[in-house]
């Protein structure tokens, strides 16, 4: 099955999440091909997992002071600070029968593309169940998946640069997340980035990711349909920019 590849775009957090959901619906309804997209976030923002409590994960005073948007994802997983300059994100949206029914295996299948991209850049990362890629135990990529209406959505970030002081100014992860990682002394030390591993440009990272995804999921470059853009605009307004959704928990 040929994929539609939507090259690098930059949107707000709410729009990025709205586009993912609009695309899921379009794939579900057979209106568009399975889709791969690569994107960035502007302005910098936070997303939290579908099942997280916003008050538990985010320093509300810090995000209010700096005007940082906090958007709830439709996927599970943890809170993420998406720095405009600091990361590259992908989404893959496709019929779930293209992937293993086993969730762990499907994470591995898709994350293998990121591992190949990082390897092409000279970075030896490995998959750390449940949903992370790590370099010597430190997280360089987080991934999250949901399935709905027979469609799988997996999105994930690859850290290009990271400033833990900024990231953890806004995020307040529970220290018990390190309970099974005794070699990591702090949440700040638990992350690394492409730039910390190798001197490369973000364009090189984006190209390596694109190539790795293309080789695993062949397809052609495409664009959003008018219907997807209209649906995304509606979802942005009614869901991803709304307190009813973002502050649901």
């Amino acid at each position, binding site marked *: 099955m040929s994929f539609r590849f939507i090259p690098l775009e930059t949107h707000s957090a709410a729009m990025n999440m709205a586009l993912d959901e609009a695309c899921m619906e379009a794939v579900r309804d057979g209106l568009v091909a399975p889709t791969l997209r690569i994107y960035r976030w502007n302005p910098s923002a936070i997303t939290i*997992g*579908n*099942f*997280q*409590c916003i008050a*538990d994960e985010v320093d509300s005073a810090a995000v209010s002071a700096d005007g940082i948007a906090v958007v709830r994802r*439709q*996927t*599970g*997983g*943890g*809170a993420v600070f998406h720095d405009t300059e600091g990361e590259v994100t992908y989404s893959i949206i496709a019929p779930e029968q293209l992937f293993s029914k086993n*969730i*762990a295996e499907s994470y591995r299948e898709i994350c293998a593309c990121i591992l190949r991209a990082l390897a092409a850049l000279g970075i030896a990362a490995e998959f750390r*169940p*449940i*949903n992370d890629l790590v370099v010597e135990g430190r997280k360089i990529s987080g991934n*999250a*998946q*949901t*399935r*709905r209406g027979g469609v799988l959505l997996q999105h994930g970030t690859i850290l290009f640069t990271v400033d833990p002081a900024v990231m953890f100014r806004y995020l307040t992860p*529970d220290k*018990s*997340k390190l*309970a*099974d990682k005794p070699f990591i002394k702090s949440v700040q030390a638990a992350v690394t980035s492409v730039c910390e591993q190798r001197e490369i440009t973000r364009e090189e990272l984006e190209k390596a990711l694109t190539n790795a995804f293309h080789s695993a999921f062949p397809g052609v470059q495409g664009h959003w349909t008018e219907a997807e853009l209209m649906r995304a605009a509606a979802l942005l307004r009614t869901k991803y920019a709304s307190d009813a959704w973002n502050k649901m*928990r």
Partner: protein
Amino acid sequence: MQIVTYKVPAGKLLRLKAEVENGKLSFVQLSGDFFLSPPEKLQLLEVGLLGQEIANTDALREALHVIVTQNNIVLYGITVEAIVDAIAQLQQGTSSAMVSS
């Protein structure tokens, strides 16, 4: 309100917020960085726990298994056993507890 933060062994983080009246759950909120499909079914687990005796772990386990099975809920990074274990922390009367294994 009691809060239990539970790191699921080889899994994700589960945070249980609960109120207990006469040994029974009168409020339950499950949150964390786990995965659950379909997402809207999380509420069924929370509602299904209301009125359950926190000391009766067998009944808690059975109630959760029935909800999971009947609604085709897929849990990932969290288990029924983890939820039962977290509720067991309430039984100990702690206002905040963490179990790491």
